[in-house]
């Protein structure tokens, strides 16, 4: 830009129709259309998101294999089959158990770590590095690492405890072990969100409370916790959505074992589609999970709206 406008913009400056030089070519004028900015993204969006979404729906109504031959329209049969598929409900149950165990843990631990790191004035970078670093590991690395830590005979944990805890060998333990590894791996993300939220709380609130004689615990319950409530809501939802799609670490650590007792629903979908070559059935299963996830999102939107409505009434 040669001259950045010494002349102030006129108050009613046309924001949508830019001033055009008389000499501008016709092509140049067409290129001013806002659609050109949006079009490239929309092409990708259409080809790699909308189309698979639609074709997936179509596949789910067919008996289709991965090669696309022998396609046969079977209506809702895939969905009917899914309703009676114990393996689906078991794996879905595993995913829900995982979600229910992990979400409160993440919220509590992330908040605790953020409070600590925020209130210690020394070595901020060190706390961030220590608690956030695991988030940067690829899932394959996480899996190898924790399989070694959980190793029954030579692993770090059993060695340190001097006991033979069946971390990955028994169903209930295995689920707990998955939750523990995932907590270590992903809590750093929520930790950073909380840290940012804590830094945004204005000092004068704490000062005023301190003047009124509120102790540290009271200040935490009556100022910190309410002030980060929105972030907590956000973390809970992000966490639920991520946990419902859990696959990598459970598959890579233990392949959903023992006896499929930790197998998440995404793994079952992949097994149906890619190992069993039943892409139609896999698509139907995907749609069932999709509906679940949309439901969570809508509940979240509804809660947010309700809360803002309540606030509007009290004011």
């Amino acid at each position: 830009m040669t001259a950045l406008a010494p002349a102030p913009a006129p108050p009613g400056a046309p924001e949508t129709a830019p001033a055009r030089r008389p000499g501008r070519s016709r092509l140049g004028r067409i290129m001013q259309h806002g659609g050109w900015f949006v079009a490239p993204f929309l092409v990708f969006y259409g080809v790699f998101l909308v189309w698979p979404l639609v074709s997936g729906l179509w596949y789910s109504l067919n008996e289709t294999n991965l090669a696309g031959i022998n396609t046969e329209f079977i209506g809702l049969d895939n969905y009917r089959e899914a309703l009676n598929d114990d393996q689906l409900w078991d794996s879905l149950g595993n995913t829900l158990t995982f979600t229910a165990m992990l979400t409160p843990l993440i919220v509590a631990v992330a908040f605790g770590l953020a409070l600590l790191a925020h209130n210690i004035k020394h070595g901020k970078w060190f706390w961030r590095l220590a608690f956030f670093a695991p988030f940067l590991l690829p899932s394959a690395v996480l899996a190898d690492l924790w399989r070694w830590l959980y190793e029954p005979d030579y692993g770090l944990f059993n060695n340190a405890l001097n006991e033979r805890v069946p971390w990955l060998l028994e169903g209930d333990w295995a689920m707990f072990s998955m939750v523990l590894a995932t907590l270590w791996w992903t809590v750093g993300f929520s930790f950073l969100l909380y840290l940012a939220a804590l830094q945004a709380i204005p000092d004068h609130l704490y000062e005023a409370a301190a003047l009124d004689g509120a102790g540290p615990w009271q200040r935490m319950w009556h100022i910190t916790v309410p002030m980060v409530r929105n972030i907590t809501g956000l973390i809970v939802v992000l966490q639920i959505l991520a946990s419902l799609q859990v696959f990598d670490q459970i598959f890579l650590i233990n392949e959903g074992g023992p006896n499929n007792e930790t197998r998440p629903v995404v793994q079952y979908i992949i097994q149906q589609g890619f190992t069993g070559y039943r892409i139609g059935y896999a698509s139907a299963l995907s749609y069932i999970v999709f509906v679940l996830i949309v439901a969570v999102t809508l509940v979240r939107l509804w809660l947010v709206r309700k809360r803002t409505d309540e606030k509007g009434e009290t004011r």
Partner: protein
Amino acid sequence: MSAAMTAARKARDAVRTGAGEEAQGRRPRWTRGRVGLLACALVLAVLWVLPLAWALATSLKPEDETTDTGLNWIGSRITFDAYRQVWESGDLTRWMLNTAYIASMTTLLTVVLTAMAAYGFSRTEFRGRRVLYGLVLAGIMVPPQVLIAPLFAEMVALNLVDTYWGVILPQVAVPAMVFILVKFFEGLPRELEEAAYVDGAGRWRVFWQIVVPLSRPVLAAVAIFTFIQTWNNFLWPFLVTTDPNAMTLPVGLVNVQSTYGVRYAQVMASVIIGGLPLLIVFVFFQRQIVRGVAHTGLAGQ
């Protein structure tokens, strides 16, 4: 320390760190509570670093000592044999380059496409804009996991299996990023842009020469977040690549694993090698990464 000095220091601290940084840190004295907090945090930090430290310790032991019971952090000698064997057994350099290429291209495409789209949605008028934006927002709810089966069939049809583009293209259209950028652009003052229009600049010049430079922090945030996600992505590259030459680092590591059997020093060496690149990046760009993650996360509100 005299009262005047304390006051002066407080004022200086406040200026230096900015208002929000220090919430209660007005008395940097070592009270009992503060020592307790520090001790607590140190214990947790040690716990958090412990798994990686143990991995490092294991990787430096001679192979036959990894299964000794008892907590020996250092074996009879420190050896890099495991690293050498890992390096020879798999094509790690190739996988790292693959991953770097795929992550960079995905990041570049994502940032350019979503920034343009966000500008189009927030600053221009055209027929169907609202409907299209609504459609894009609805896409935020679609979990990528739902799409894998039909997406894979599409990749087979497009002949993109086992290619870089087969990994890159499906990861590029991220509606959440459009949403984040639209929110940011809406907060930008319009005056600069309008002045440029008066000067006769077209939309493209205004976008590239005014809006993009003004948005550098948020674009960096989107780029950093996308890069981390793509670098570490497992499921999609795992499904769409079978040729070892086209694999990304996470997929290659899983693939080569089967050849080690139970050789823990080697497995842990591969853990360290696989985790190191992003950790090094993090040490150098901590500030930007923290801001980037917090920003993209918070925008989810």
